[in-house]
C-alpha cells in the first residue's frame, strides 16, 4: 500500500474518498478548511461551499436522505450555527451515512473561543470519534460512515488544530465499491419530525446510545496498551500522543470513540490501577463521566482546563515543576502581531473610522485586525454576523448624539453567512445605524475561499454572483453607496455623512483582496520616501502598512521608509502625506 505524508485534514478527505462519499458541503473555518479544498480534487464527489454551516449540514442531510454517503465539515463554532438541524437529525437518523467533522481549536490559534465540541456529541446524542494522528483521521473517517449506517445515526468526527494541521505518515487504503445507488425513497414517519413521529424516536435515540456504548467496548479502537506500568491513563485524540511522550511507562486505555464511552472497557481497565489519570484537553468530558461511574481518577485537578496541552504542560502538571532550560532570552522583545497585508483594501476604511471616532460593532474576518493599533477601530467582535444586530441593539439605548457614532462593519462572506438577517431586522424595526460591507469578493481570513458573492464555486467554475446592493435594497435599505476604499478622502466623507443620516444606510467598500490571484491585479511599482521631503510627521504610520518602516536613525528626527519588497503600490500612504514625500519608484 502506498505511504505518504498527510495532514489530518488531507487524511480526512482521503478517508471520505475511500469511504465512497458522493456529496460534501462546508463553510470554511480554521482549522477545518483544507478538508473540502482537498476533497474537491477527487473525481466523482460533489463538494461545495455553503453560505453558512447550517446550510451545509442541511445540504448534507438532503444528500444522505437521497441515499449517498455525505461529509459535512466546519470549525467548532460552526457547529453552533448548524446545531438546529443536528439535534433533530439525531432523531431522524440517516439513509446514506452522514459524518459531521468538527475541527476544534484549543489554544484559540485562530478562533474567538475554545469551546469543547465533545459536549455536542453528548448533547445531541450522536456518537463521536476522535483521531490521534493522520492515519487514524483517515481510518476513523471510513469507520464513521460504516457506524453511521449500521446504527442509523449521524456520526461526528472531532479533530483539534494539532490533528488537522499536523502531518504524519499515512498508508492509503482502497476506495470502497458497490455502495447502494441514490434514489427517491419516501419514509415520512421517519423523516417528518412532527411531535407524533419524533416522540417514539427519542426512545430510539436513547437505546442507540446504550447499544453503542456496549458495542464500542468490544471494538478494536478501544485499545489497552501495556508498558508494564503501575499507572493507568485513559486518553484519546492528541492527548494520547502526549501521554506516550511524557509517560512512556504508563499503561494506556486509548479511546477511539469519545462518545458514548465504552464503560465496560473503562471499568475493566480502571480495576488494575491505584493511580489512574484521565488526560484530555479542555473540558473534563471523559473525567466527569468516569467519576460518575464511581471510579476515582485524577484529571483537571492537575492538568490545565484552558488552552491546549503540550508535552511540557503535561510534564509540568505531573511533576509540579518546570524543567530548567539551557537557553534563555532575558530582554523584552517586540511582539510580532498579525497585520493586514500591504495594500489590503480594508485598511483605509479603518483609518477613516478611527479618524471619525466611530463606535464600531465589528465582525469576524481579516478586518478584525482593524482592532490592532495603530488603526484601533473596532469596539466589539462576538461571532459571525453579530455586528449588525449589535449595532441595532446598542443604538436602541443611546442618545441621539451617541447613536450617530455607531457603525457596523462586516465582510462580504460574513454578511452572506448570517449578516443579512440582522440587516432585515435593522430596517424592519426602524434602526438608524450605518452598516459597512467590506466587499473584497472573497472569504479571505480562512485562506481565500469563494462564496456566493465572489462569482465562483469551490471547483473554480464561474457561477451567479450575488448582487449585494440589490440584496440590501430588497430588505428595504434605501441608502446604498458603493465606494473604493483606496480613496481615503471619499471613504471618510461618505462614512461621516451616512453616520449622521437618521435612517439605515449601507456603504459597500469594494476592492478585491490583495492576495486573490484570479483578478490578476496588475502588479504596480513600489513607492519610496523622498528623504528631502519627509518631515518626520509620522502621518503615514497611522495606517499601519507593513511596508512602511520607521527608521529612527534617518534624518534628524527619524524618517519613514518604504520596504520595496513588501510594497504593492496601492498609494494609500501617498494620500496621507501632506509633504508629497512619497513617489513611485518607476517615476524617478
Amino acid at each position, binding site marked *: 500500500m502506498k505511504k505518504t505524508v498527510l495532514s489530518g485534514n488531507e487524511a480526512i478527505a482521503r478517508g471520505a474518498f475511500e469511504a465512497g462519499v458522493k456529496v460534501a458541503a462546508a463553510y470554511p473555518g480554521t482549522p477545518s478548511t483544507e478538508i473540502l479544498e482537498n476533497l474537491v480534487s477527487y473525481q466523482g464527489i460533489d463538494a461545495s461551499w455553503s453560505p453558512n454551516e447550517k446550510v451545509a449540514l442541511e445540504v448534507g442531510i438532503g444528500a444522505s436522505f437521497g441515499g449517498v454517503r455525505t461529509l459535512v465539515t466546519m470549525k467548532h463554532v460552526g457547529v453552533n450555527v448548524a446545531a438546529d438541524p443536528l439535534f433533530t437529525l439525531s432523531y431522524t437518523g440517516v439513509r446514506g451515512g452522514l459524518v459531521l467533522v468538527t475541527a476544534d481549536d484549543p489554544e484559540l490559534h485562530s478562533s474567538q473561543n475554545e469551546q469543547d465540541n465533545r459536549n455536542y456529541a453528548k448533547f445531541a446524542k450522536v456518537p463521536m470519534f476522535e483521531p490521534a494522528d493522520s492515519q487514524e483521521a483517515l481510518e476513523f473517517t471510513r469507520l464513521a460512515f460504516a457506524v453511521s449506517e449500521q446504527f442509523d445515526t449521524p456520526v461526528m468526527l472531532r479533530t483539534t488544530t*494539532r490533528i488537522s494541521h499536523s502531518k504524519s505518515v499515512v498508508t492509503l487504503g482502497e476506495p470502497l465499491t458497490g455502495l447502494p445507488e441514490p434514489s427517491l425513497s419516501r419514509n415520512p414517519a421517519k423523516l417528518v419530525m412532527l411531535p407524533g413521529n419524533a416522540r417514539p424516536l427519542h426512545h430510539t435515540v436513547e437505546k442507540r446510545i446504550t447499544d453503542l456504548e456496549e458495542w464500542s467496548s468490544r471494538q478494536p479502537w478501544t485499545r489497552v496498551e501495556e508498558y508494564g506500568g503501575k499507572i493507568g491513563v485513559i486518553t484519546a485524540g492528541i492527548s494520547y500522543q502526549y501521554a506516550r511522550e511524557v509517560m512512556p511507562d504508563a499503561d494506556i486505555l486509548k479511546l477511539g470513540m469519545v462518545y458514548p464511552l465504552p464503560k465496560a472497557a473503562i471499568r475493566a481497565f480502571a480495576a488494575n490501577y491505584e493511580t489512574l489519570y484521565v488526560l484530555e484537553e479542555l473540558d473534563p468530558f471523559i473525567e466527569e463521566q468516569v467519576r460518575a461511574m464511581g471510579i476515582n481518577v485524577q484529571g483537571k485537578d492537575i492538568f490545565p482546563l484552558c488552552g491546549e496541552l*503540550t508535552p511540557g504542560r503535561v510534564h509540568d502538571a505531573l511533576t509540579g515543576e518546570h524543567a530548567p532550560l539551557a537557553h534563555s532570552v532575558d530582554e523584552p522583545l*517586540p511582539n*510580532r*502581531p498579525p497585520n493586514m497585508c500591504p495594500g489590503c483594501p480594508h485598511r483605509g476604511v479603518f483609518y477613516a473610522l478611527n479618524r471619525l471616532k466611530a463606535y464600531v460593532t465589528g465582525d469576524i474576518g481579516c478586518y478584525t485586525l482593524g482592532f490592532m493599533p495603530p488603526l484601533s477601530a473596532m469596539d466589539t467582535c462576538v461571532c459571525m454576523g453579530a455586528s449588525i444586530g449589535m449595532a441595532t441593539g446598542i443604538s436602541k439605548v443611546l442618545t441621539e448624539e451617541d447613536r450617530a457614532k455607531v457603525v457596523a462593519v462586516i465582510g462580504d462572506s460574513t454578511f452572506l453567512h448570517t449578516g443579512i438577517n440582522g440587516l432585515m431586522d435593522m430596517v424592519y424595526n426602524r434602526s438608524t445605524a450605518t452598516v459597512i460591507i467590506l466587499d473584497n469578493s472573497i472569504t479571505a481570513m480562512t485562506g481565500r475561499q469563494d462564496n456566493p458573492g465572489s462569482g465562483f464555486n469551490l471547483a473554480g467554475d464561474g457561477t451567479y454572483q450575488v448582487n449585494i446592493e440589490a440584496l440590501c435594497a430588497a430588505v428595504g435599505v434605501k441608502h446604498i453607496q458603493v465606494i473604493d476604499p483606496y480613496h481615503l478622502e471619499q471613504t471618510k466623507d461618505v462614512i461621516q455623512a451616512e453616520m449622521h443620516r437618521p435612517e439605515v444606510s449601507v456603504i459597500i467598500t469594494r476592492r478585491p483582496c490583495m492576495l486573490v490571484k484570479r483578478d490578476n491585479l496588475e502588479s504596480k511599482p513600489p513607492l519610496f520616501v523622498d528623504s528631502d521631503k519627509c518631515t518626520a510627521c*509620522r502621518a503615514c504610520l497611522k495606517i499601519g502598512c*507593513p511596508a512602511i518602516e*520607521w527608521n529612527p536613525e534617518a534624518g534628524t528626527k527619524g524618517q519613514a521608509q518604504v520596504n520595496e519588497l513588501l510594497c504593492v503600490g496601492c498609494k494609500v500612504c501617498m494620500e496621507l502625506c501632506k509633504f508629497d514625500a512619497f513617489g513611485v519608484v518607476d517615476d524617478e
Partner: protein
Amino acid sequence: MNDKVTNILLVGVGGQGTLLASEILTEVLMLAGYDVKKAEVHGMAQRGGSVVSHVRFGRKVHSAIIPEGEADILFGFELLETYRYLPLLGANGKVLANDLKIMPLPVATGKERYPAGLAEKISAQVPQSRIVNGLQLAIQAGNDRTVNTVLLGTLATLLDIDLDLWRQAIKKLVPEKFCVVNLKAFETGLTVGF
C-alpha cells in the same frame, strides 16, 4: 535506527514561505524511511505574524510538538524570530539562521526598536550556530526568491540523508517552472555548509 527522535524547529514570519520549507523537509524525511511528524498553525497566525513549524523524526514519533528545550536544530528564517525561540533549543542544540531582519509592526510604527546585535547574541549563547546571508546567496545562485531553498541546502549538511532525496522532494513540491532555479539554490546552500 535507534530510538532517538530528532527535533527541528523552523521559525519565521508569515509570508516568508516557511511552511513550504517545512513541507520539503518533511517529505525528505519520509523518503528517508523515518517516522516523521510536523505541526504548524494556519489562519490568523499567518498574516505577517510569527510562524513556527515543528518537525520531528525518528523510528517512532509521538507528539508532533517538540517538547520545550528539546529542539536539536533551530532553523530560523529571520533573526528576531530565531532569537525569540532560543529557549526551545536543547543544551547541545544548533542554530542555523538567515541573516535577515523583518520589522514587526510595533517597530515599523516607531513604538519599539528592533533589538540590536541579535546575530552576536545568538552566537554567544549557542556555540554551534551559523548565520548565513540567504538573500545574497540566492542572488548568487541566480534568483532572489530561492532564499529558503539555499537555507535548506545548508540544513542538509547537518543531516545524514542522501542528497538525492532532497532533490527529489524539491522536484515534487516546488512548482515546475521554478524547479531548476531551486535545485541550483539548493546546491549553493550545500557548498556554503554549516
